[in-house]
């Protein structure tokens, strides 16, 4: 049995050109408007909000220097050696570490230093009177 398809002879293949046009426009739109930065945030709150000031006894000052060093208790240490800070934190868990920066230190270096402090377990950090 032979069957003919019921389509008329006028039927033709759809041209791909309009499809490509639309896809190109979509591609351009998404290329130009998309961002790939995965934003995160580091919360900073006022010290009086986050710390019970009655509880805190000692403030230790850390000065972040350029050239990969920091100053703690009037002595300079390389950033790779945070053991004095860790020891102080272990001995006095109610202490607050007040971080200040020397001239020439960039925000990236400061953030890296704060990250390092968090890594060794220092939770009470103050920056410009704000707690981190």
């Amino acid at each position, binding site marked *: 049995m032979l069957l003919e398809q019921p389509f008329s002879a006028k039927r033709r293949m759809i041209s*791909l050109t309009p499809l490509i046009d639309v896809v190109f426009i979509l591609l351009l739109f998404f290329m130009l408007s998309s961002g*790939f930065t995965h934003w995160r945030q580091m919360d900073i709150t006022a010290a009086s909000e986050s710390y019970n000031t009655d509880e805190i006894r000692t403030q230790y000052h850390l000065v972040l220097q350029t050239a990969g060093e920091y100053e703690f208790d009037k002595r300079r240490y390389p950033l790779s050696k945070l053991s004095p800070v860790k020891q102080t934190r272990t001995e006095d868990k109610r202490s607050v570490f007040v971080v200040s920066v020397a001239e020439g*230190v960039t925000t990236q270096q400061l953030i890296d230093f704060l990250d390092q402090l968090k890594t060794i377990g220092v939770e009470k950090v103050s920056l410009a009177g704000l707690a981190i």
Partner: protein
Amino acid sequence: MILIPNHAPRGNQPDDNMIPLINIVFLMLIFFLIAGQLTSSDFIKIQPPTSQQQSALQEHDAVLLVSSRGQLAFNDMLLEADALTDLLKQAISETNNAQSFKLLIKTDASVPANKLTELLKRVRAAGILRVSLATQTQSNKHD
């Protein structure tokens, strides 16, 4: 049962050469659809510092941008550092809730940290208690 098409088998058409191109364009489109995020671009270009912090970015009442050249922009408006405290106080008064007012600071990684601490002092002077610093994950450093 045999179906007989009512037209001759199609030979090579000009559009056939476009098919690999369409495939690639479709793949790129899918990539940008899935991997990209549709967000409004910042008023001034910022290369944020990288951090190990994992807190996802949350909604904020106001955004303060600090460019690598030291330009300040508050809610898409350029301003001088001296005017910041007043503008922040004004923004707080509009929300009527200083306790819950959240400020996001997007600062360029190369901005001197001294400038950032100075800004934080101004923010504190305005009475803002909740401040967040925008960072990016390590893997996005070169994006």
